[in-house]
C-alpha cells in the first residue's frame, strides 16, 4: 500500500515536471526567437543545452513506462514516439551526432558543406559556409555542365523581371559511372548519403554555382517521427466523442458536458466540472 502511494506521488511529480519542462521550453524557444537564426542555432546546438535535450528525450521515453496505461492509446503513443524519434534523428543528423558516428567507426560523413563549381569544372572538394576553409572531399565527383536561370515575364518597365528558377545541370562521377542530373531550387539531388541543393551562384568573371551538400544521416528517423507525430495528433484529437475528452486524473464526467439544465435541476446534483474555478 505504502509503495503504491509513493508511486502515485512519483507519477504526480513527474506530471508536474513534464508541465514545467514544456513551459520552460516555450521560454527557451521564445528567447531563441529574439537571438536571430544564426545565434539561436549556435545556442541550441551548444554543449550547455545538451542536458536539456537529453532530459526531454528521457522524459518522453520515461512517459511510456510511467503512464503505460495511458500511452496504450495509439494516438497518444504515436504523438510522443514521434517527438522522441525527431529528437533522436536530429541528434544523429547534427554535427555532434556525425562526430560520434565517426568515432564509433561508422560512416565518416561531412554533415554540412558547400561545393563551388564553375561551368565545366569537375570537383569533389567541399568548403565551410565562408567558402574559405576546405572541409574534405566527397566520395563522388560532380561536374557542372551548365548553370542557368528562368525568368518571369516582366511586370513593369521599371523593374527587372523576377527570377523563376535557378538550374544547375550536373554530371555525377562515381567510379567509372557518369550520370547526368539537374539540381534546381526545391528539387535537391540525392547521391550516396548526401543531398545536393541549388544554393547560390556568382560570376568571377566566369559563371559558377554554389551547391549545398547536406548529409542525410538520421533523416529517415526524423521523417518517421514526422509521420507519427502528425498521425498521432490526428488520431488523438480528431476521434469522435469519448476519445476527444482528456482522461487522466479527473473522473470521466468532469470533461464531458453536464446534462441539460432541466435534467440537472430535477436530479438536484451539482456538476463538479467547473464550479471551483468559475467566476
Amino acid at each position, binding site marked *: 500500500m505504502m509503495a503504491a502511494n509513493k508511486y502515485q506521488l512519483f507519477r504526480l511529480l513527474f*506530471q*508536474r515536471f513534464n*508541465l514545467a519542462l*514544456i*513551459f520552460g521550453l*516555450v521560454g527557451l*524557444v*521564445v528567447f*531563441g*526567437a529574439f537571438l*536571430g*537564426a*544564426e545565434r*539561436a*542555432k549556435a545556442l541550441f546546438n551548444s554543449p550547455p543545452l545538451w542536458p536539456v535535450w537529453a532530459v526531454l528525450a528521457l522524459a518522453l521515453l520515461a512517459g511510456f513506462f510511467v503512464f503505460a496505461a495511458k500511452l496504450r492509446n495509439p494516438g497518444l503513443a504515436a504523438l510522443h514516439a514521434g517527438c522522441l524519434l525527431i529528437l533522436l534523428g*536530429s541528434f544523429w543528423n547534427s554535427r555532434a551526432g556525425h562526430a560520434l558516428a565517426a568515432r564509433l567507426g561508422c560512416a565518416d560523413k561531412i554533415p*554540412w558543406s558547400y561545393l563551388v563549381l564553375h561551368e565545366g569544372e569537375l570537383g569533389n572538394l567541399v568548403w565551410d559556409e565562408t567558402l574559405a576553409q576546405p572541409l574534405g572531399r566527397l566520395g563522388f565527383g560532380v561536374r557542372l555542365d551548365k548553370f542557368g536561370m528562368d525568368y*518571369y515575364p516582366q*511586370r513593369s518597365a521599371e523593374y527587372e523581371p*523576377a*527570377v*523563376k*528558377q*535557378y538550374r544547375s545541370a550536373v554530371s555525377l562521377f562515381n567510379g567509372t559511372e557518369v550520370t547526368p542530373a539537374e539540381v*534546381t*531550387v*526545391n*528539387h*535537391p539531388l540525392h547521391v550516396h548519403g548526401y543531398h545536393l*541543393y541549388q*544554393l547560390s551562384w556568382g560570376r568571377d568573371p566566369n559563371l559558377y554555382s554554389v551547391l*549545398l551538400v*547536406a548529409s542525410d544521416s538520421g533523416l529517415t528517423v526524423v521523417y518517421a517521427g*514526422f509521420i507519427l*507525430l*502528425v498521425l498521432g*495528433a*490526428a488520431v488523438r484529437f*480528431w476521434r469522435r466523442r469519448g476519445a476527444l475528452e*482528456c*482522461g*487522466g*486524473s*479527473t473522473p470521466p464526467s*468532469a*470533461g*464531458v*458536458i*453536464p446534462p*441539460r*439544465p*432541466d435534467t*440537472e*435541476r430535477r436530479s438536484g446534483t451539482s*456538476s463538479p*466540472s*467547473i*464550479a471551483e*474555478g*468559475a467566476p
Partner: protein
Amino acid sequence: MMLHLTPLGATIYTALAAYAGAFVAQLVRRPRLGRALLAAGSAVALAALGWRWVETGHVPLQNLFEIFLAMGVALCPIAWCCRRWLPAPAEALDPLLGLIVLFPVGFIFSAEPRDLPPALQSWLFVPHVAVYLAAYLLLARAALTAVSLYWQRNGTLPQIGDRLGGHRRWLQSSIFNSSDRLARAGFPLLTAGLILGALWGKLAWGDYWHWDPKEMWSLATWLLYCGYFHFRALTGARYPRTCAVLLVAGLVAIILTVTIVNIAAIFSGMHSYAK
C-alpha cells in the same frame, strides 16, 4: 492605414460590411440572418480571393494581405463545420473573427502583387499555408470562446445565455468544453503545418529546421498548446480560468508568429518574404 481604392478593395469592404452586419444580427438575436450575412461575406471575400488569384497568377497565399483575405474566406466554412461537429456556442464570435481578420486586409496590409520567388514554388506551399490558416482560425476561435465565458457574465454577449436555456453553470461548462474542443480540432492542423513547413524547409533550403525567428515562434506556439493539453490532462476541468489564459496566450503567440515576425526588423529571417 491605407484604403484600397480598387475593385478588389471594394469587394473586401463589402465583405467587411457583411461581417459587421452578421455580428450585429447575432448580438440582437437574429441568428439566421447572422449566418446568412456571414455566408454572404465569405462569398464576397472568395470573389476577392479569386480576383487576386487571376491578378497575381499564383495561389494567393504569399503575403499577409493574401493570407488574411483567405482566412476571411475560410472562416465561414470552418464556422459551419464547428456548428456541425463541435458544440460551438457564442456564434457572434464567428463574424467578430471575420472582422478582426479582414480589417487589416482592408486598411493595413499592402496589396502590391509579387511573383513567387523560386523557393516558394513548391507543392508544399499551398498545404503548408492552408493547414496553418485553418489551425489559426480554429485556435483563435477557441481563445475567443474561452474568453467569452467571462464576458457573458457581464451580459456583453446576451444571446448565448438565452439561446441555450440560461442555466449559468451548464452554459459555462458547455462554453468551456467547446473552447477545449476547438483547441483539439485545431491542434493536429497546427502540428501538420509545422511538419509540412519542416519538410518544405528540407526540400528548399537543405534543412528541416533553420532556427529562424518565425520557426521559433511557431514552435513556441505549438509547445504552448502542448502545455495546455498537458495542463488539462493533469487538472481536468478544475481551472477553467487558467485554461482560458493558456488559450489566450496561444492566440497571442499565433499573432506574434503571423505578424510581428514579418513586420519587426529584429525578427528578420528566411520568412521575411511573406511581408
